[in-house]
């Protein structure tokens, strides 16, 4: 028996489980740090895109449009192949974090923006009348409210972020996809290696996807008040991020 899924190939995968585990760990670390960066960028650019200052709006728009309309692969290749020409050599791990962080930051900025826009105007006016500055209004009044409604689209972004960390495989980044690919191209045991890799990604992503769907459904059932309008607004934000 020597098919692509032969028994001895499976045995080899389980013998070298530490290769996959190491990759899994790297993927996990890149995802966590990438998410942190994406959230920071997303909140900053999301908030300034709703400010009254035109320059801020334009800056945020440029960031979102450029990042969303060019491939992640090109962005990562630029960090990996382009920057060394001007003597900036980043470790692949940092490129992974920076790559997915900046990429998904642009999507999260749109999610945050939609969340802020969906907050009733009266909230802003009330805060202003109480003497809150724009930043204070955001920090204490608006953002805490938007968190509830933006959690589902944010979680979907996280799932995409985890999947997109696999871009590291294209620059020998040591992530799960890379480890599986390099391991299996050395012995040609592609079948079981890819199945195990798929299962590991699924374990990371599926619970998150379930969680997002559950919250979405609950919101649609109206248990969280005042969301019908906001969900409408958020469909803009999930653009391309599905």
């Amino acid at each position, binding site marked *: 028996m020597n098919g692509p899924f032969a028994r001895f190939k499976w045995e080899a995968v389980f013998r070298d489980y530490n290769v996959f585990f190491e990759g899994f760990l790297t993927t996990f670390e890149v995802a966590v740090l990438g998410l942190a960066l994406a959230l920071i960028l997303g909140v900053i650019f999301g908030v300034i895109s709703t400010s009254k200052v035109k320059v801020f709006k334009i800056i945020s728009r440029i960031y979102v449009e450029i990042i969303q309309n060019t*491939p992640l692969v090109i962005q990562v290749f*630029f960090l990996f192949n382009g920057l060394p020409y001007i003597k900036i050599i980043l470790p692949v791990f940092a490129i992974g974090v920076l790559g997915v962080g900046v990429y998904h930051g642009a999507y999260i900025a749109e999610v945050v923006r939609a969340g802020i826009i969906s907050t009733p105007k009266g909230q802003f006016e009330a805060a202003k009348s109480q003497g809150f500055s724009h930043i204070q209004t955001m920090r204490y009044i608006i953002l805490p409210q938007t968190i509830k409604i933006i959690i589902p689209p944010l979680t979907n972004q996280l799932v995409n972020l985890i999947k997109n960390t696999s871009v590291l495989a294209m620059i020998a980044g040591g992530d799960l996809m890379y480890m599986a690919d390099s391991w299996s191209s050395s012995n040609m045991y592609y079948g079981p290696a890819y199945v195990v*890799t798929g299962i590991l990604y699924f374990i990371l992503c599926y619970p998150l996807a379930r969680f997002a769907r559950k919250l979405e459904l609950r919101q649609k059932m109206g248990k969280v008040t005042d969301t019908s309008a906001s969900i409408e607004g958020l469909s803009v934000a999930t653009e391309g991020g*599905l």
Partner: protein
Amino acid sequence: MSQVFNQANMLFLLNGMKLTLIIALISIVLSIFFGTILAILRNFSNGILGKVATVYIEVFRNTPLLLWILSIRFLVPIPPMYSGIVSFTLFTSAVMAEILRGGMNSVSDGQYEAAYSQGFSKFQTLKYIILPQSFRSCIPTFLSQSVTVIKDTSFLWVVGIEEFTGKGMIIMGSFKSSYQVFLLFGALAATYFIINFTISCSVRTIKTVY
């Protein structure tokens, strides 16, 4: 500059773009077709087919595209371009199915009841009442997913399919100066940007029309 954008390089890149667009277009059309079938099965079949559709969608939505590109390339003996189209179609069908399901779920129950009360069968209700409305409401999301597909075709370079990014990287191999490399990266990004931004803008226009 003339070294970067000479005639040979431009033609070379243009061929890559042609391949990118062909793969993207075929995959998008096929994905909408298979996505529709999956969405209908998941929403309306309580039997084994419905379960299969659900599992299919969940598996493909929770694993990376790159995994499918590599798997199809190395496990299925078909020419590279076809393996690219197959992996994109497999992956994007699940996404399209979820988009369409969203559209179908937003059609109100009254529509179904009205159709049934007029003696429409389940199939007729779907074909004449539900699907036309769902498709219409899904067009913007289908288009923004197309942007994602066009961007993601650049992943195909991992298996040596010479689409736009791949061609760009091949050209880059012959460059020495940072100026040339940055110029080329700028040109690659700008080309993707022009195509995708046009689609993104039309999505926004369509949304305001709706």
